[in-house]
């Protein structure tokens, strides 16, 4: 299934892209998406363990399955305020 991945701040800078279209197996979990991203983009590996993952704008735990067309966000530690 197709998913969209958005990357921000240091995560975006690490691979030079803020948006990716990925094909992933059905029922891929958030933790598996992390592995997949790290394998495909080694430059992300330093920052990825520190990032949260969101699915359609909500923070998602590692065992949450992705769905067709979902927008996954790679969220480095935030620093607003």
């Amino acid at each position: 299934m197709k998913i969209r991945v958005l990357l921000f701040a240091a995560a975006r800078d690490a691979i030079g892209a803020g948006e990716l279209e990925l094909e992933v197996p059905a029922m891929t979990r958030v933790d598996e998406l992390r592995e997949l991203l790290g394998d495909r983009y080694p430059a992300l590996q330093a920052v990825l363990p520190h990032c949260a993952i969101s699915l359609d704008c909500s923070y998602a735990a590692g065992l949450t399955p992705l769905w067709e067309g979902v927008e996954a966000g790679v969220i480095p530690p935030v620093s607003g305020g």
Partner: protein
Amino acid sequence: MNSLLEPVVTVRLDTSLPEPGQLLAAIASPACGASVLFAGSARRHTGSRETEWLEYECYPAMALAELERLAHHCCQMFGAGGVAIAHRLGKVPAGQTSILIAVATPHRVAAFRAVEWLMEEIKARVPIWKKDFAPDGTGQWIHPDLPVQVGSRTSVAGPREGMHDGSEDRSRGADREFTTDD
């Protein structure tokens, strides 16, 4: 004007901030005897680090959703009749305001506590990031939980671009220090 039954919630992310009085006016209510307004600004010095300007970016849809969720939660937890939050995006020179929070409650203690709670939650979970630029134009993302070498460090276009004089090796940011308000 509003009643406690229908709290007023307004959140905004923009390259400029409204006048503080606009936030206070938006949350004013005869049911609320206290309004507290908080302003966070870009601080020039954080430890040994000097900041010339900050650049904020966000994940717009999620940041707005998180801010609205926090504001509604704030109304429930603190009995607030109104919550207004405005966060600035883009370039914020040192000394200028980056965030405004206003909360109205029936009594003052709840309003003070609500503003403090909101600020802590915003810093902990709303997807907004700042990049801290030094006077020499080098910039670094502030990611509080990342070791210093992970945050990217770049140079803006200018006469110093491409020069490597060792200044970029200064330890800047990416620790638990923040460059605004606290």
